[in-house]
């Protein structure tokens, strides 16, 4: 019952806000936030039930045999539900301040609540069809929210791009659903996993490929990642909630949920791990040349999801999911802190026009710094534990190349994150936008219509600092035995952890030290290029020179968009033009014209019968009736 409420509360909020938005007005923010936080409270209340020996299961209904719909709250879905409603609730509260001056604030919160409902549908479903429905709905919510400012053509284009690529992924999952139902006559996870052992390798590969196409599209994995940087056109809280903390990690959830299938197909595990690693490196490389603060964070998100996907791909499920858990906190933190900066600078997002904001916005600076230290894996903060677990997991499961890629990317991460910190908060201020609002951090600038109190935006950021620092300690075992994190999942991934034994003999502690060396090197290089006082003095000229010097390949995002344009978009347009130019006029329209001509010709013949003489008609009727009677009279006589 509580589970049902947990699932449906955000939907109720969305419907209420949709229907009564104009009447509710700015109270929409409080209502939308309360609904999500109430769901969070319910998720906390169900913590004990979900982690007990028999996970919480609520039957909703049966359509036909094999099609049974229900809700499942086991440790994995509980984890996602907690993040969606917990971090999501904080972001809702933050949005009250961020969207205060927007006339469509009720519509915004309706979409946000709808997103939370869709995401809960995705993770709470106990069957693949419900999962696919949630999968599609989060794509729709993402489309709504990227295109929230629909009067901006770039936002509309980004929304369409995200939606189309995500639907491509949905199709992959749909074929996996078909294959699984054909093989097991059931859509429930429990039935499928019970029969997983009987699947042929071909079937396993087909299903895993279908699922992973969906995961790659939703989680921005190469080559389906190009929508994520563009998705930053949406409001910053949307970027924090959907395009960093929750929706884009749905791919990680999918692979972890289907661990029993992926574990049986080593080639597919390898594929997933490699795609994750490629994404991780690509995102980091592209992140180092971005100037837009949100695009830096977007590429960083892509890179970090690459880590997670690599983790769950190689079989280090707990590590990959742990990185999702910590990433949700520190990336939401980074985005919200970036939102404070953007908000105070009148929607300026270019880091070249920032600088020196440390004195003016100390709160945003410290929040951003803690988030940055967490994401680069600074010892003691959450990212340190989760990232090292993923990197070492790759080695443990026998993938030395992925391990090396992970270590190098950790260095790149440190470099591009500190590049952002130095450009934004240190040196002289380089922008021309007024900094009047900068003092009030999260408050509003005077020329906007009224403003929310500054604490509305600062409180969620401050609250996020706690898990950003502490979340990683869940994976530390105090006093021997498995860590709380490992025992949290119970038997969920048992039998899926086929540790191959390290190929390179490096102890975990030494591996952590190696990662730290690269991280330190990244920070030092970033300092020398952007942070040192001599560099800061001539920052404007240096940044202009650097902007010109960025290689074309980086500017164009390694040509992924161009290749997709050439291979998919252009041929689609060509097909469309061919249909519009030939099939439509010469086949479809011609067919319609022929039908019209036949009708006209028949009419020309039969119109001659319509003389308009009523007496003529009467005579025809009499003659007809007479013939009719005569016919039956003759028949009767013949009998």
């Amino acid at each position, binding site marked *: 019952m509580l589970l049902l409420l947990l699932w449906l509360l955000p939907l109720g909020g969305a419907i209420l806000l949709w229907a009564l938005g104009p009447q509710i007005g700015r109270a929409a923010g409080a209502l939308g936030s309360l609904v999500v936080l109430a769901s969070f409270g319910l998720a906390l209340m169900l913590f004990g039930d979900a982690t007990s020996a028999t996970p919480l299961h609520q039957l909703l209904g049966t359509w036909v045999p094999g099609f049974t719909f229900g809700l499942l709250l086991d440790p994995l879905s509980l984890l996602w539900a907690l993040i969606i409603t917990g971090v999501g609730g904080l972001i809702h509260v933050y949005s009250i301040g961020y969207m205060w001056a927007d006339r469509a604030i009720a519509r915004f919160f309706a979409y946000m609540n709808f997103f939370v409902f869709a995401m809960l549908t995705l993770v709470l479903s106990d069957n693949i069809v419900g999962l696919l429905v949630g999968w599609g709905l989060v794509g729709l919510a993402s489309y709504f929210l990227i295109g929230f400012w629909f009067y901006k053509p770039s936002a509309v284009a980004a929304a369409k791009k995200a939606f189309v690529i995500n639907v491509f992924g949905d199709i992959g999952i749909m074929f996996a659903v078909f294959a699984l139902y054909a093989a097991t006559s059931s859509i429930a996870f429990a039935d499928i996993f019970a029969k997983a052992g009987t699947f042929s390798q071909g079937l396993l590969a087909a299903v895993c490929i279908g699922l992973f196409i969906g995961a790659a599209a939703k989680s921005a994995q190469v080559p389906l990642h190009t929508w994520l940087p563009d998705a930053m056109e949406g409001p910053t809280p949307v970027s924090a909630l959907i395009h960093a903390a929750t929706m884009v990690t749905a791919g990680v959830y999918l692979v972890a949920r289907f661990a029993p299938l992926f574990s049986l197909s080593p080639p597919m595990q390898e594929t997933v791990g490699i795609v994750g690693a490629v994404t991780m490196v690509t995102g980091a490389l592209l992140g180092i040349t971005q100037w837009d603060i949100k695009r830096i964070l977007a590429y960083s998100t892509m890179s970090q999801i690459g880590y997670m996907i690599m983790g769950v791909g190689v079989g280090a499920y707990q590590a990959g999911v742990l990185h999702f858990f910590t990433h949700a906190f520190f990336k939401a933190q980074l985005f919200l802190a970036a939102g404070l900066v953007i908000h105070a600078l009148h929607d300026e997002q270019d880091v070249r026009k920032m600088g020196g904001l440390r004195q003016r916005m100390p709160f945003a600076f410290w929040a951003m710094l803690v988030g940055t230290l967490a994401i680069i894996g600074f010892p003691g903060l959450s990212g340190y534990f989760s990232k090292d677990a993923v990197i070492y997991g790759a080695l443990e499961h026998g993938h030395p190349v992925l391990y090396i890629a992970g270590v190098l990317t950790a260095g790149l991460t440190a470099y591009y994150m500190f590049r952002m910190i130095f450009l934004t908060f240190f040196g002289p201020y380089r922008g021309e936008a007024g900094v009047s609002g900068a003092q009030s951090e999260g408050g509003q600038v005077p020329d906007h219509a009224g403003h929310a109190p500054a604490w509305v935006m600062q409180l969620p950021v401050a609250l996020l600092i706690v898990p950003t620092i502490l979340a990683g300690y869940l994976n530390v075992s105090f006093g021997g035995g498995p860590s709380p994190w490992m025992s949290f999942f119970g038997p969920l991934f048992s039998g899926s952890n086929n540790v191959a034994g390290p190929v390179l003999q490096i102890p975990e502690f030494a591996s952590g030290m190696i990662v730290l060396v690269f991280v330190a090197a990244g920070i030092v290089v970033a300092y020398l290029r952007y942070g040192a006082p001599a560099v800061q003095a001539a920052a404007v000229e240096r940044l202009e020179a650097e902007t010109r010097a960025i290689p074309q390949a980086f500017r164009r995002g390694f040509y992924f968009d161009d290749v997709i344009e050439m291979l998919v978009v252009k041929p689609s347009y060509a097909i469309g033009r061919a249909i519009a130019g030939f099939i439509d006029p010469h086949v479809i329209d011609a067919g319609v014209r022929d039908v019209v001509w036949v009708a006209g010709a028949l009419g020309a013949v039969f119109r*001659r019968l319509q003389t308009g*003489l009523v*007496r003529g008609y009467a005579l025809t009727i*009499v003659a007809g009736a007479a013939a009719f009677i005569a016919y039956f009279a003759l028949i009767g006589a013949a009998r």
Partner: protein
Amino acid sequence: MEVDVSNYVALSAVMFFIGVAGVIVRRNPLIVLMAIELMLNAANLALVAFSRAWVNNAGHIFVFLVVTVAAAEAAIGLAIVVAVFRRAKNVDIDEVAGLRG
């Protein structure tokens, strides 16, 4: 004295064909309407006659229906005639041929 049903049917047939001839031959719409009434009542007569002969009341009931329909038909028919007369200023049904193909 019992009148044989064939007499009624014969009278009905005669009335019916008088009506048919009236519809086909006459050009005055009022007369045409009257001829139609005649045909309807010929049918009524046959219905009543058979109904009596076979001791079955269905025919009687049916006649009431026909009378109702005939009344409605007369009302509508006269309204149409009046409307046509107002437009065309004549009452020759051969002249009213606006729907000629």
